[in-house]
Structure formats: C-alpha cells, structure tokens
C-alpha cells in the first residue's frame, strides 16, 4: 500500500466509528498496552505509517511517521553520533515513536537533559473530523499558536492520532562514567540534590538496595573534576550500561512486582514514611514502590507536593493520580472540542473520557 491510502483508511475507520457511535483503540507496537486506565474500542494498528521523513544532523532535528520503530530512530541517530536525550523506555519491546510521544514517558536522564515533551518540536494530528493538521515544526523556537505539540505529548491518544513527530536530537556526550556509593536512601537523596546544585555534569542519579548510582556525561575534563568531588567507586562500562538500560526500560527486579507504584515528587523530598524501601531515579524526583494498591502512597505523595500512579495492579480508585476538579473540567472541555463523539482511546487517560 502506498503512503496516502493508509491515512485514507484511517479516515474511513474514524468515520465508521463515528457513525456507529463506536470507539477506536489506537495502537503502535503494543509495548505499553499495560499503561493507562483501560483499553477500549476496536484496535487501530498505527504501525504501517512508518519511516523517517527527514533527518538533518546539523539541524538537530528528526521527523518520523508515527509507526516508525524506536530502534530504527535510535540506530539512525547513533550512526551520526546523536541520540534521543530523554531516553524513552521500551519495556522490553520496540515501541513506535508515535507511542513514545503519546505516552510521554522519559528515562533516567530526564532531570538533567529534559523530558519527552521538552524534545517535541512538532506534530501532525489526524483529528476526529478526519483533518490532518500540523502544529509546531522542525525549528527549535516556535511560538506561533498554542503549543498543541506538547499538549499531545502524554495525551495517550485521547485527542486524535499523532501521525508524525519532529524531535530535537542531541549529540551523544563525548564521554560517560558511572560511580557507585554505599548510602542510605535518605543520604542518597540529600547527596543527589546537593550535587545537582553544583556545576557537575550529572546525567543520572539513582538509588537501589543501599547503593547510589551516579552517571556523569560530558567532556573528559569535566568528568574527572566531578569524580574527584563525588567520590565512590568507578563502575565498569558494561555493568554501568546494564544498570542504566535496565532502569530506563523498567527491567530491574523490582518491576516484576505485581503491585507497583510510580511516585513523582519534588526531588529533595525526604523518604516517605512507609515500610519498604523504594527504587529511586531522577535524583529523587521519581520513586518506585512495590506496595499494595491500598497503600497510603497517594495521600503521602500529594502531601509532599507530588502524585502517585499505580503502575501495575488494580484499584477501584483508578491508576492515575486524580486530577483537581478544575483541571479535570478542562480535560473534559478539551476532549469535547477535539473528539466530541469520544472515539479515540475512551477512558485510557481518565475514566469516562
């Protein structure tokens, strides 16, 4: 099938779903089928609309169709010494770039390089009306119109089909090094945030089972100065890479837990008053707890200025942290504008939406 007929067939599916008061479940590789409140609607496979449309290394931008596998994008970038600095998790599969942006999840470099949404420069959206729209573009700075590209990042497909994305890419760091220190969780969080306030080339700071892992990226001179300041024992390249990859893709042993919470907090927050120790990422800003669904984590996180997402497990109170009423009202109004018949991924981001 040539390119345009794919979009035409999607338009037909949208029209049919609208006419039948049905719903479409937008799906890339399916690597994140576990993610979200619920999966509902007839699956619409988005993997056929694929390929890198444009990549110019000296412009630091790559544009790809939604079905393009992440592995293809990363290999293309690596051949030019570049990468996606937000390190999107693949969860052991090979997600599509459309799914990566629709989920908006970021890996261990998030606090030091930026989140997925920080690298979104432009998107194309196939709407409930079958219109193919373009927002943002391939340039670094663009304030023409509302920033719908970033709104779509993390939208879980509820506003329409993201058919194409333009991402800012960056040169790979010249060098990387990882050191490991024996610290308590509390001491690690304090140290991570002390170091983050200093001009050190941090690119990852995690804690697991009594060990703090600190990754440094940059010029050789900056790395050696930082290592002198931080101390700890150097970790061999292979071991370091294995750890950061496992952390990025949620493949450490903790992720096998049947009930798992993902807690987002101001990074310097002291360890929460809970039995059981978390896995800490993002220099303290992200904490994973193997805790039952009935855990008081949601209240504790909210009291600390954060939120808690039930990553795996079932709860009558939903997986995502509840929205403030005013914020939820805006979600409903935006959904009503973009998808008045509720055909795209109903209930995946918010129950009943």
């Amino acid at each position: 099938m040539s390119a345009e007929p794919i979009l035409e067939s999607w338009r037909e599916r949208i029209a049919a779903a609208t006419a039948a008061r049905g719903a479409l479940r937008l799906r890339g590789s399916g690597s994140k089928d576990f993610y979200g409140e619920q999966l509902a609607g007839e699956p619409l496979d988005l993997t056929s609309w694929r390929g890198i449309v444009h990549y110019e290394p000296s412009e630091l931008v790559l544009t790809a169709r939604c079905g393009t596998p992440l592995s293809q994008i990363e290999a293309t970038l690596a051949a030019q010494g570049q990468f996606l600095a937000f390190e999107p998790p693949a969860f052991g599969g090979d997600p599509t770039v459309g799914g990566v942006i629709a989920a908006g999840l970021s890996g261990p470099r998030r606090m030091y390089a930026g989140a997925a949404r920080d690298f979104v420069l432009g998107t194309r959206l196939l709407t409930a009306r079958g219109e193919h729209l373009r927002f943002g573009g391939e340039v670094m700075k663009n304030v023409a119109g509302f920033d719908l590209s970033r709104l779509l990042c993390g939208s879980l497909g509820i506003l329409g089909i993201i058919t194409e994305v333009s991402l800012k890419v960056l040169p790979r760091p010249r060098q990387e090094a990882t050191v490991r220190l024996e610290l308590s969780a509390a001491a690690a969080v304090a140290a991570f945030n002390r170091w983050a306030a200093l001009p050190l080339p941090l690119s990852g700071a995690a804690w697991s089972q009594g060990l703090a892992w600190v990754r440094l990226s940059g010029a050789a001179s900056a790395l050696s100065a930082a290592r002198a300041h931080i101390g700890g024992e150097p970790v061999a390249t292979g071991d370091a890479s294995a750890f950061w990859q496992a952390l990025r893709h949620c493949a450490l042993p903790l992720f096998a837990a049947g009930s798992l919470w993902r807690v987002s907090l101001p990074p310097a927050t002291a360890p929460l008053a809970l039995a059981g120790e978390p896995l800490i990422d993002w220099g303290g800003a992200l904490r994973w707890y193997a805790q039952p669904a009935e855990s008081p984590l949601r209240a504790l996180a909210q009291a600390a200025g954060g939120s808690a997402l039930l990553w795996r497990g079932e709860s009558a109170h939903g997986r995502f942290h509840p929205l403030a009423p005013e914020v939820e009202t805006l979600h409903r109004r935006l959904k009503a504008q973009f998808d008045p018949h509720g055909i795209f991924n109903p209930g995946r981001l918010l129950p009943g939406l």
Partner: protein
Amino acid sequence: MAGARSRHFRRSKRYTRGAPARYDVPMSATDIVAALRAVLPADCVLSHEEERRPFECDGLPAFRALPAVVVLPRSAAEVRSTLVTCSRLKVPLVARGSGTGLSGGATPHPQGVLLSLARMNRVLEIDPHNRLARLEPGVPNLKVSAAAAVHGLYYAPDPSSQVACSIGGNVAENSGGVHCLKYGLTVHNVLGVRGYTVDGSALALGGGAADSPGLDLLALTIGSEGLLMIVTEVIVKLIPRPPCAQLVMASFADVHRAADAVAAIIAAGIIPAGMEMMDRKATEAVEPFVHAGYDLTAAAILLVEADGTAAEVADQVQEIEQLLRSSGASALRVSGSEAERLLLWSGRKNAFPAAGRLSPDYYCMDGTIPRKHVGRVLEAIGRMEQSYRLRCMNVFHAGDGNLHPVILFDANEAGSWQRAEQFGAAILELCVELGGTITGEHGVGVEKLNSMCVQFSAAERAAFAAVKHAFDEAGLLNPGKLIPTLARCAEYGRMHVHGGALAHPDLPRF
C-alpha cells in the same frame, strides 16, 4: 525589548490600523469602574485618562488603544475578584506584565480592563534543595537570578529585555534569549503556574514534582499570550551557574561561510551556550554605541560562547576556534576577561536600541528558519531592501535559527510604516516557505495575525480556537489576539493575491 520603548515610535503619532474587534459590552466604563471598586481597594482601579494613557501600548507602539479601565492588583485574591467581575459583566480583559512585548500582545481593548500585574513583584520563595523559585508574575526576569545567586543558582532564559521584562510575561510569550540552544526556552524552565481561569476558578498546573497527572496543560498555557488563564504565581527551575564562560568572536567575509561555521560546530557535537550572528549593518549600528571592537570589515560576525568548568571551557574554546578557522573565519578574538565577554555580548543585546540611533523608527521581526537557509534568507532580505526602499539590519540567534531582521523606517514619511509592515510580512512568509515559523519568541499578538493565516490552515486555526473555547468560552481574555478570524484571513488572502498573481512579483521565491 525594554530599551526600545521610549525611543522608537513617536508618541504624537498613531498608526493603529483600526481598533480591535468591538465587543458587545453591555456596560459603560463608569459602570465597570463602579463594579470593580466594589470589590477592590480604590487605588487598584485607575479610571482617569492620564492614568490609563501609559498603558495604551506595549513594546510595539504601532498598535495602541486606550483601555476603558486599568486594574493594578496587589494579590491573587484581587486578580480573582477582577476576573469574577469581568466574567459576570462580560467585559474583555487584557493582562500585562512589564509591557516590553514586541508583538502587541498586551495592546489594550478599548472597552475592556487592562490588568497590570506589575505590583505583584515579590519573590515568594527560593528553594535551593529542590532548585526552584516561586515568584509573583511581576518579578523582573533578571531579579530571579539575582535572588538565587547566593545559592550559586540562576534562571536560564535571558531575553534581551531581561532587566525589565516580567516572569509572567515570559510565561505568556514562552520567551527565549541568547542561551536557548543549550538551556531551553521558558517552557523548558518553568515547573508550574498557579492562577485563575476567566471565571475565577483556581488552577494549579505542574509544580515542584517533575511529572503531573493528566494532559500537559502547563505546556499549553506557556506561550498562550494571556488567552487561556491569568497567572498569579510561577514556579521556575533554577540551575547551577557555570563557573566559567568564554566568548569567541569570528569574522566572516560572507554570510554563507558564517552559516557553514554554525553547522560545522553543531556537527562536531558541540552545543555552545550561545551562538549569535550579526551582519555588517548590525555591527555598524551598535559599534559606535557600545565600542565592543566588532570587526566592521566583516560581512558577518559570529559570537560563540562556551561555558562550564575552567578546563572544560578551555578545551571547548580551542575546538571552536579550530572549527571557525577551518570554516573560513577571517579573524578570531577570544574574550580574555569577564569584562571583555560582557562587552562583546552588550553589542548584541543592545542591537535594537542601537537601531534607534540609525533611524527615527525601527520594526523588529522574529522569524525562525532551519539554520541551513540563513544565507538565502539574508540575501533575499537584501533584495527586499531594494523593493521596499527600506534598510534592514540582521541579528540572528544562529544556534537555533531565530532571525531578528530590524527594519529601519521613518514614521513621519508618508507610507513608510506601511512599507515596513509589508516588508516584515514578506520576510515571515519566506520563513514559512522555507519550513520555518513566523515567530520564534516574540509571539503573535496583534502584529502577526495576518501571518498566522499564511502559516496555518483554516482547520489548524480552528483547533486553536477550540482550545480557546475550552478555557474561555465567552472569549473575554485578550480577545482579538493570536488567532485570526476566518474573515480576516479571507480578506488578507484577497489583498495579497490579485487575479492569481502575488502582490510582490518582483520578490524571488523559493
């Protein structure tokens, strides 16, 4: 652009192209004042003409309107009272920070309230552990870094007007600066906002935690030009101040070589802290003003900054020098001291006020293009100078492709402003043709409404209107800005193309 305000348009003249769209305002100014005085302290509501006059325009004085009422709240509660009153009475409301915006985004509505947030200028909290600052919207950009300096931290975005421009205004415009390539725009450096929707509902988006549940309404709000909500508190990210910075200045005999040098530096895997280009017309304008020692024989100069630890900067400067030389730089100068570095920057940062020395009036554009096209665009602008019989100097955030052509004109000369406006629109259309955008950091405001018709389809503009509708159904917040009406775009299309022929067939098209 604070420096420009006092200089670049004469107050005695008015260039307003008709008032903004009239609203069906059921109450007179007197009644609006009475309703607001019932809920606000008396000195917060300005009604006399001489009190309202200073608010009639922002940093783009080509667009002016006297607001019916000016409100100067001191607190979030007073902002809320103002919103509730305006919503109830269906009175349009335009928010304003320091008034340094360059797209007329804070141009008042003649039958509406102008809400100045200038009095809300307190730094509420500096949290060095979580590296964030909580600010009222009227805090000037530069004050944030000053308040954080004791902790070795600063706020990265640095618009040229940073002495004066407010953090609330930065949020409204998604402001940039000269260090965006490495450190990002406002959207990358704001963690959260608090404020109110048009009906007075409290809204908290984002915050001290990295992730928030739901749609990224924070990103949507940043750069929304006061159309979606009124922000009463901004939480910004603070980052460690690099201990060392050094600037390399390179001269080039033509702009193409300068553009190639920019690409070569990026291709070598270097993201400089800043990378700016000025053409000869720009260096000639600023040199007598700042005495920076710019090479006036060069067709273009590049300013490339490295920052980090001393060792890191020394390594990077050496590499940048080699890349610049191999790209054909005819001369290089490396800042030998912090004073020299700041002097070399001061010319760039004062480019707009310097235009005021060359010309009675000037008009600053803000298009963004893929970097590789900069040579073509600068050549095309050179040809447009002939067509429109106006001079144009060019300063350029070369690292991120953001071009600031500064068109020089004399508003006292009949037709001069109209030619400047058409010249500017032609530049922006060229930016769109080359895959760029009509505004990189100044916003659409009222100025670029016509250009929005060029960049976006009717369906895309309808999507913007849909967002506006979701937040502000009655359309009371900053009406007539950012989103052109269908009728306006139809009219612009008719004016622009006559019988299938472009309005300016003499201009080269790509």
